[in-house]
């Protein structure tokens, strides 16, 4: 049984490692086969008439039960097993687990949608979230593995001689991981609600059950083997619809190789649609609406009185004429919808004006997909500036995402679990390889969906629109809404408003695949969100139990109590995160990206200099972490609208070199490096033991005297 396969015979060593790996290969091959069979059986059942919501339920129950099952089979109270999976996860499996740990709901569900909406600009995420692994490989993974403790604050505490750097590490780790985990649990709630039709809040707690059984019982060991299982599901789920779309459009089953030509066609369609008279009609209609609200805003009291008057009169006349009940109710609703006072009217009308003005642009506001940066370097002054700012922000975002990737504790922690330094290096390769498979495909998915929308959907009569449009519109009108604003009965691109988050989930339906594939894609999204949440919760709980409690408060605590406390904390943190996620916090996507800037500024300089510069000392690292984090935090709080609201900042927004708040780490990271350099040189060098620790970390095996 699979449970036995996660045990390893005593003794260890190379031959035991090899046997263990062979056993894993066998288990996961069977598992993949089982998953495919499961899909096929469901597909057959669907053809025989199994209702759709049943399929959703079966996917939800089966996958969550599977993850919980692996958790139960891998339960442990041993510290090394609980914190680092016994340090015997083979490179390739650690790579798969890291891939699942890394790819969150944002990668799986959100990224292709972002690419669909922003074209080239969205590629900053593709570059940033893969290129960061070069930094992990070159600067961190092998050295952290050689150091060989349990957490990232562990390294800071040992290398920088004391509890202050360790404590700062704990604070920064919790800050990044908590914002990130809230977003995952939110994603779990959304997908569970879609799959099963349960309420969002209940969805959160069902998903949470799956996460908790797994990490609660088995810690890193259970999380690792679950993440491998989740990776397999999510990659199959991502590939199937894209390959299908590719075959449908080009009859070539390798979308990644062929979508360049589809992109050419999309670019041609964009040109056609920009000039299309019907599209221009739509733009004019939205413009007229925006102008209407603008006129109302100029004299609010009069407009409000007129609106009330008109609505009252209409209702009265309908009632008088004994109109059908539905019409009367509609008129009553319209009357109730008139803003109650001037303040409300101003707010509602300003919003309506902005929303309509935003849609009165070509291509529904999307830039040309293949256009590199906004503006024009050879245009007038304004176009030149737009180009310059767009390019600068693209590169800044890539930088922050890369450095942030190389500093997220839940990812770095995974490299403690390999059997050796050699395997840690290889494991980074496997990690990026498995992540690459999905990130290589996401831009193809975006282009293929766009081709489908531009060439199949646009021009369809409204009464013949495919079923997925109406069904998604019913699920959430903020994610997808279509309106025939120029009343010609034909669908124009400008008449659709689509949210990035449904592109991937709707792809199977866009491609005309059976519903079972939609269920599988949703299950893949769930796997992505759950696996990341597992890793993050474990990071937070370990930072608190291992670093704060065991290392700083009670160093004599027995192992069993440490693990027990970690499990308790895991429960508390998970419930707290679920409570926050249930509030549906605004700007969740911003918070996720902010986590990258925070991690980059707090950890990267201290970790890298800790290995590569022996002279870096306690005071340099502590102040450097504070300065990096502080700079990033300050810039975000003073420039990001939502944070400005939270902290009550009212001074005018002052951007530095026009850099957007999302890339605040661009200032925090150099600040961190600078402060560590200067302060370390001004204060005494670290002790001899610490310098020897650095030497120890630099060589996989020093073998002094033998070399």
């Amino acid at each position, binding site marked *: 049984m699979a449970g036995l396969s996660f045990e390893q015979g005593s003794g260890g060593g190379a031959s035991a490692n090899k046997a263990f790996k062979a056993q894993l290969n066998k288990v996961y091959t069977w598992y993949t086969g089982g998953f495919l069979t499961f899909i096929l059986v469901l597909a057959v059942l669907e053809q025989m008439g199994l209702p759709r919501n049943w399929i959703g339920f079966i996917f939800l129950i089966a996958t969550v039960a599977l993850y919980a099952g692996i958790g139960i089979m891998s339960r442990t109270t041993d510290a090394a097993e609980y914190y680092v999976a016994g340090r015997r996860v083979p490179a390739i499996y650690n790579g798969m687990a890291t891939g699942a740990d890394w790819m969150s709901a944002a990668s799986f569900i959100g990224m292709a949608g972002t690419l669909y909406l922003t074209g080239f600009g969205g590629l900053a995420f593709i570059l940033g979230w893969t290129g960061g692994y070069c930094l992990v490989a070159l600067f961190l993974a092998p050295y952290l593995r050689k150091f060989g403790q349990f957490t990232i604050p562990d390294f800071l505490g040992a290398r920088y001689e004391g509890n202050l750097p360790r404590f700062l590490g704990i604070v920064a780790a919790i800050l990044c991981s908590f914002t990130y985990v809230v977003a995952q649990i939110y994603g779990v709630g959304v997908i569970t609600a879609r799959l099963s039709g349960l309420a969002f809040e209940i969805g959160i707690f069902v998903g949470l059950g799956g996460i908790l059984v797994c990490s609660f019982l088995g810690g890193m060991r259970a999380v690792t083997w679950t993440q491998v299982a989740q990776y397999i599901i999510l990659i199959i789920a991502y590939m199937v619809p894209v390959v299908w779309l590719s075959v449908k459009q080009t009859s070539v089953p390798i979308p990644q190789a062929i979508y360049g030509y589809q992109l050419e066609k999309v670019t041609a369609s964009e040109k056609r649609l920009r000039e299309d008279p019907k599209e221009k009609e739509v733009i004019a209609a939205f413009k007229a609406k925006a102008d209407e609200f603008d006129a109302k805003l100029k004299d609010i009291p009069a407009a409000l009185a007129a609106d009330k008057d008109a609505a009252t009169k209409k209702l009265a006349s309908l009632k008088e004429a004994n109109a059908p009940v539905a019409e009367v109710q509609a008129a009553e609703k319209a009357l109730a919808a008139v803003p109650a006072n001037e303040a409300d009217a101003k707010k509602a009308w300003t919003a309506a004006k902005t929303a309509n003005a935003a849609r009165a642009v070509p291509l529904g506001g999307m830039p040309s997909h293949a256009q590199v940066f906004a503006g024009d370097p050879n245009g007038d002054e304004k176009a030149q500036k737009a180009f310059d700012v767009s390019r600068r922000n693209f590169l800044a975002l890539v930088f922050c995402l890369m450095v942030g990737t190389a500093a997220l504790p839940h990812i770095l922690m995974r490299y403690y679990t390999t059997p050796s330094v050699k395997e840690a290096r290889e494991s980074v390769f496997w990690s990026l390889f498995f992540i690459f498979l999905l990130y290589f495909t996401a831009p193809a998915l975006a282009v293929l969906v766009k081709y489908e929308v531009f060439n199949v959907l646009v021009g369809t009569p409204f009464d013949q629109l495919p079923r997925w449009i109406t069904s998604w519109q019913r699920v959430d009108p903020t994610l997808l809404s279509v309106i025939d604003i120029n009343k010609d009965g034909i669908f124009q691109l400008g008449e659709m408003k689509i949210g990035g988050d449904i592109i991937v989930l709707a792809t199977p339906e866009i491609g005309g695949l059976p519903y079972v594939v939609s269920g599988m894609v949703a299950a893949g999204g769930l796997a992505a969100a759950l696996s990341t949440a597992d890793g993050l919760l474990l990071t937070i709980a370990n930072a608190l139990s291992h670093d704060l409690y065991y290392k700083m408060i009670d160093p004599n605590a027995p192992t069993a109590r440490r693990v027990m406390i970690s499990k308790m904390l895991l429960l508390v943190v998970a419930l707290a995160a679920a409570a926050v996620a249930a509030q549906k916090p605004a700007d969740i996507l911003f918070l996720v990206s902010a986590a990258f800037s925070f991690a980059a500024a707090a950890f990267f300089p201290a970790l890298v200099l800790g290995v590569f510069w022996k002279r870096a000392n306690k005071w340099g690292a502590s102040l450097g972490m504070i300065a990096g984090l502080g700079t990033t935090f300050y810039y975000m709080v003073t420039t990001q609208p939502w944070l400005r609201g939270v902290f009550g900042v009212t001074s005018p927004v002052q951007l530095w070199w026009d850099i957007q708040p999302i890339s605040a780490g661009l200032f925090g990271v150099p600040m961190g490096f600078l402060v560590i350099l200067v302060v370390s040189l001004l204060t005494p060098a670290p002790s001899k033991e610490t310098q020897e620790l650095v030497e120890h970390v630099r060589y996989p095996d*020093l073998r002094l005297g033998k070399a």
Partner: protein
Amino acid sequence: MQMQLSERHHQYWRANLRITSVLLAIWFLVTFGIGFFARDLNFTFFGWPFSFWVAAQGALIVYVVIIWYYARHMNRLDQEHGVAEEE
């Protein structure tokens, strides 16, 4: 314990720094070099504008190769300088 590194150790560390900086330079060029001149590198490449292709695929391939090469190179370096772990 008195820690005395041999010349071989120093050679190993210097070789490590050398390969690290070379690979880092390649990483930097592919990411920020091509990124900076992306608008100028807009010629058609199998349907894609070249810089679009680099950001969507080319750079990713280079990243994977960088990490693969580093792992292979360092594992050999460990052997040559006698600092490899005991199997």
